[in-house]
């Protein structure tokens, strides 16, 4: 036996977890399918990627359309302004300021001040013509005569936006012509609102499309996953219904089924083998036994042979029990709701007189109605093995305590004694088959008792631990709790 847990030699506080696979999925009270988080779900990712792609492309297309529309609208307003300016330029060329004044007057008369601004002033700032009462603040004369550029943006005190030209004509006449920008902003606002609604609708449709794609793709994988879950829970004969499609998914399902068929066949073969071993071994043993009964005299030898045979069979049964409990681990079939409190009390009652006769102080603290999903005989055997061990390894005057109490979602069963406890090296291997203390060879047994306890606990989805104790030995088994049936 090797010192496996050297580091734990001095540690007294933390319980040593035993190498039972507690993380394995457990059905019902203790055995649930592994939950895949939404964030980590491939279905969600596929859906978001598809939807995101659709939304990105369509928003891009709409943005481009928006830009084109905006440009066209701006160009149209600029054209109107340019046409005005061309007209004014012609009049100015022929008749200078008086002609321009008439032209501005005429233009202003037919143009409401919210669609276009026209203003011509004299050197002193008096209005000669136009639909403005004074030079708008912020308009800085720039550029030559009636060129369309440079143009500038104007905002009137009322907030209306215009775009146009401000000039100082030769002789110091300030001149201003601008077109309202409102039609452009109006139209673009309208367009933006439309785009918003379309985008919302499109996103919803994109998410729907993404969901449909995700469902189509990931749903097929989901079927396989739930099949794998059922198989992991022990339903080896589970298969997907319906026919296989001809695509890659169908091929995957077919492979899966072929694999499961093979596992099932192997499993059946194993069962048949252990039955066959039982038959092939016990039948000749039975013949030996019957012949032994016919031997007269040598009573002691015959009794010794009988005892050895019984021991061999007990060991052999324990090994088969361990492997069948291991094989059935996590499987629900065969388990029924049982009252662990009753079983614990019965088995304790069975052992109590034995402990008493040995001068031990045995005590049970069992809270009632501890329902678990289990097999009565196996649960009884666990408690029996633990009590049997406790009685074997203690001396007169020692204490043995059996407790059963609810703890969170589990029923915690513990057996502790004030005996010599376990050496550190033994702690590490105590649940292995054929592990026995070097100083305990005088005590009857095969070292299979705790291995069987572990196998049965695992079969029931129970967690086993050996908490460190000041003195003696303590074992805890946390059985998945079942709400009362």
């Amino acid at each position: 036996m090797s010192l496996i847990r050297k580091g734990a030699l001095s540690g007294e506080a933390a319980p040593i977890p035993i190498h039972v696979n507690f993380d394995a999925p457990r059905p019902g009270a203790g055995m649930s399918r592994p939950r895949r988080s939404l964030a980590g779900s491939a279905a969600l990712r596929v859906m978001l990627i598809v939807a995101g792609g659709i939304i990105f492309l369509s928003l891009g297309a709409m943005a481009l359309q928006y830009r084109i529309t905006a440009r066209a609208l701006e160009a149209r307003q600029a054209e109107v302004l340019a046409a005005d300016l061309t007209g004014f330029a012609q009049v100015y060329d022929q008749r200078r300021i008086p002609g321009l004044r008439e032209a501005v007057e005429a233009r202003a008369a037919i143009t409401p001040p919210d669609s276009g601004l026209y203003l011509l002033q004299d050197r002193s700032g008096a209005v000669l013509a136009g639909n403005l009462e004074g030079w708008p603040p912020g308009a800085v004369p720039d550029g030559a005569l009636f060129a369309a550029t440079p143009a500038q943006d104007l905002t009137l005190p009322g907030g209306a936006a215009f775009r146009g030209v401000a000039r100082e004509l030769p002789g110091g006449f300030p001149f201003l012509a601008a077109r309202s920008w409102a039609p452009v902003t109006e139209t673009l606002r309208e367009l933006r609102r439309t785009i918003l609604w379309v985008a919302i609708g499109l996103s919803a449709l994109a998410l729907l499309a993404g969901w449909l794609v995700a469902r189509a793709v990931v749903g097929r994988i989901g079927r396989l996953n739930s099949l794998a879950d059922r198989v992991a829970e022990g339903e080896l004969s589970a298969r997907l219904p319906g026919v296989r499609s001809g695509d890659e998914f169908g091929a995957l399902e077919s492979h899966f089924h072929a694999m499961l068929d093979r596992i099932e066949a192997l499993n059946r073969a194993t069962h048949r083998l252990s039955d066959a071993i039982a038959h092939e071994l016990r039948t000749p043993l039975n013949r030996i036994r019957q012949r032994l009964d016919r031997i007269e005299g040598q009573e002691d030898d015959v009794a010794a042979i009988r005892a050895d045979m019984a021991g061999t069979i007990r060991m052999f049964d324990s090994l088969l029990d361990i492997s069948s409990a291991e094989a059935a681990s996590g499987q629900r079939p065969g388990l029924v709701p049982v009252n662990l409190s009753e079983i614990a009390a019965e088995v304790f009652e069975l052992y109590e007189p034995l402990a008493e006769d040995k001068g031990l102080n045995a005590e049970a603290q069992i809270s009632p109605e501890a329902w678990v999903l289990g097999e009565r005989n196996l649960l009884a055997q666990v408690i029996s093995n633990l009590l049997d061990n406790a009685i074997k390894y203690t001396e007169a005057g020692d204490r043995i305590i059996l407790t059963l109490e609810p703890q969170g979602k589990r029923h915690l069963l513990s057996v502790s004694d004030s005996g010599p406890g376990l050496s550190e090296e033994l702690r590490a291997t105590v649940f292995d088959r054929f592990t026995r203390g070097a100083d305990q060879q005088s005590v009857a047994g095969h070292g299979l008792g705790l291995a069987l306890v572990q196998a049965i606990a695992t079969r029931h989805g129970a967690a086993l631990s050996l908490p460190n104790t000041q003195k003696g030995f303590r074992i805890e088994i946390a059985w998945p709790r079942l709400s009362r049936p």
Partner: protein
Amino acid sequence: MSDTPRILIVEDDIEAAEALSEAVRDLGAEPIVMRNYADGLKAAGLAEFKVIVFDRMLPGGDGIDAIAKIRAAGSTALVLVVSALGRAANKIEGLEKGADDYLAKPFDGDELRARLRALLRRQDMVVLDNDLITFGDLQIRMKARTVHVRNAHVPVSPKEFELITFFARNAGEVVTRTQLLENVWNLHFDPQTNVVDVHVGRLRRKLEQAAGHPVIHTDRGVGYVFDPQGSVVG
């Protein structure tokens, strides 16, 4: 001839069949041996048997599958399964499928006789519905769940009461430890320690003290005999 109870033995292993037949003859019954499943099933329907001993891994089938068919055919025989499939799980399966008792191979001759005797006795016994069972000056009151010797109350624990009623049903016959563990405690595994002995020992002391003579006797390592009137003690 008609007084001799017949016991059907369906067993393919010659040695085992011989041992079974011998045990049956020891009990004063007539053994009829069949060597495979089909013949066994046919024989069970042809004649009246008190007990049918069925093996499990027989050529042609599993004995526990025959139980339902035998019962459906109207047989009142009690079924003892004797099988190499001898683990607790196998036993429970057999009992759940209707076997009246289940014995694992390799079996002890005395254990087998005790089981067969208990089954024969059960066949003969009228249902124990009377409240009072009396063995000389020992009284077991079923409803009150009390035991009296010469009208003096003997305090027994509930389990001890169950023990004494099982003994009473098999009074005068050898009852093995395994039988007690299976019938009184409903446990189908082999505890490493002989826990049953301690319980029987306590009950025996109580009864002996009250009765003034041994009531439960030990039968050379096989089991116990409940004999309150000291009639069968040999």
